[in-house]
């Protein structure tokens, strides 16, 4: 949805000029020609940004800001002041009063656009996250929970919409996903975020904890990631920022585990960091399985957590797999379909894959997943997902999913 800018100036020519300049940039522009109507317009329907002239008769720009900062609906709307050149005092006073930036008259129209975009870029994340944080705060009280319970259904619907229906199609790679939810609101999530012509951000995560706070945490993490990952930072730094955001504002027992990485189709590398999530597996055409262990602490419990970025090269035919613990913690049924090739080849250098794995006679485990992957490596990514689902059904003797399960398979074309 287009963002709305309220432009306030007593000079109608300037109003028209700014409107003509900003609308082609994709903004909705509303105008007001004096302080009173500006305050009224902002209260009735708070805009995303206000471009406010200082020198106006009756009520000047400073008075308008002061009023806006006193009103609940408008106090967090960012304001850019438009002042006369050289009025340093005005600038200082404006920033003191709570303006976010200023532009001096006469202005260069390109500068106006750049400053508008810069301020919106800074305040956009706060605007999306604030209502979520407020809702989560209430989520911890009985009354809040009662109020929110009615919205659980709606939350489930929103969550489903947030998950991409299809894996993206990328030249040179075959990508498939699987998500099975055990209840209406899923803790597992994934997302694909195009970063550039040759780079795509990929995330797979699992929000722990229950009910509405957990569902909101998932939405918050996904939103924060979407907003943060466009910057050219390492996956480790991005996880660190998300961790700090969640750790600061939620209870310690509400946390998530997640992998975030960047698939570069030009260099065929996957650069990733891992916040306490099940280790990704890489199968290579020499029939080895590598367990990618680079990463750090689970997300959201400790503010001082640190993360490391790792890179893995994907050769033609290599397969990368991310999954959630709903897969590896699937419990065995009465007859967990025996598998003569069980365990990873002893000749392999990687024979100590999952040395401390959950015993595979009780739980599916990373070991059996690795075997299933190896046996079906010739299949397409989506057929591989299906093979895992079938193997899980064979193992558990049931097609039911007691826990959420998510799986991403990325295969480089041969």
């Amino acid at each position, binding site marked *: 949805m287009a963002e709305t800018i309220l432009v306030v100036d007593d000079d109608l020519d300037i109003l028209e000029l700014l409107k003509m300049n900003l609308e082609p940039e994709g903004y909705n522009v509303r105008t007001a020609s004096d302080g009173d109507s500006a305050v009224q317009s902002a209260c009735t329907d708070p805009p995303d940004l206000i471009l406010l002239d200082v020198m106006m008769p009756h009520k000047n720009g400073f008075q308008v800001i002061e009023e806006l900062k006193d009103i609940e609906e408008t106090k967090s709307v960012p304001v850019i002041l438009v002042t006369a050149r050289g009025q340093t005092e005005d600038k200082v006073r404006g920033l003191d009063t709570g303006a976010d930036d200023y532009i001096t008259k006469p202005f260069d129209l390109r500068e106006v656009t750049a400053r508008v975009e810069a301020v919106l870029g800074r305040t956009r994340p706060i605007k999306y996250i604030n209502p979520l944080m407020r809702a989560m705060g209430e989520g911890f009280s009985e009354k809040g929970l009662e109020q929110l319970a009615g919205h659980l259904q709606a939350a489930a619907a929103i969550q489903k919409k947030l998950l991409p229906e299809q894996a993206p199609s990328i030249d040179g790679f075959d990508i498939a996903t699987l998500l099975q939810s055990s209840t209406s609101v899923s803790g597992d999530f994934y997302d694909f975020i195009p970063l550039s012509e040759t780079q795509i951000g990929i995330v797979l995560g*699992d929000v722990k*904890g229950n009910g509405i706070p957990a569902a909101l945490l998932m939405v918050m993490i996904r939103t924060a990631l979407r907003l943060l990952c466009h910057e050219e930072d390492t996956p480790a730094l991005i996880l660190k920022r998300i961790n700090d955001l969640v750790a600061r504002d939620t*209870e*310690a027992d509400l946390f998530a585990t997640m992998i975030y990485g960047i698939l570069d189709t030009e260099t065929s590398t996957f650069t990733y960091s891992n916040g306490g999530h*099940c*280790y990704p597996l890489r199968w290579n055409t020499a029939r080895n399985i590598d367990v990618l262990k680079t990463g750090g*602490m689970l997300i959201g419990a*400790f503010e001082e957590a640190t993360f490391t970025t790792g890179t893995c090269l994907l050769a033609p035919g290599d397969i990368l797999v991310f999954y959630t613990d709903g897969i590896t913690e699937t419990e065995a049924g009465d007859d967990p379909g025996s598998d003569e090739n069980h365990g990873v080849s002893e000749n392999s250098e990687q024979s100590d894959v999952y040395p401390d*794995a959950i015993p595979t006679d009780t739980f599916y485990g990373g070991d059996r997943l690795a075997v299933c992957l190896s046996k079906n490596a010739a299949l397409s990514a989506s057929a591989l997902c299906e093979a895992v689902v079938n193997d899980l059904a064979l193992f558990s003797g049931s097609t039911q999913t007691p826990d959420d399960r998510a799986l991403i398979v990325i295969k480089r074309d041969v």
Partner: protein
Amino acid sequence: MNFDTTIGEENISTLHVEGKILGNATDTFRKEMEMQLQTGYDKLVVDLTNVPLIDSSALGAIVTTLKSCQESGGKLVLLNPQKAVQEVLEVTHLATVIEIYDTEESARDAFM
């Protein structure tokens, strides 16, 4: 899941848990640890020798209690987690912030 709690020297409280800590059992587990804290015992040893598996809520309960103990000047340590539990602690990197001991004696020494 069953458990019993013993208070030893130096007011160190040891929680012996037996069985999987999953689902409803997690709530009981969380409440028992909270009760220890509320009654003033903030030196906790959680004995996981007989726990084959814990779920993420139980992990959350441990993290919350760990932080509460630290805030009041105490400590929470884990005793003898089994393979599956140990792996969860390693994957989540909680093993880097929680002290883990093999024997009851070394766990108790951690508070001296």
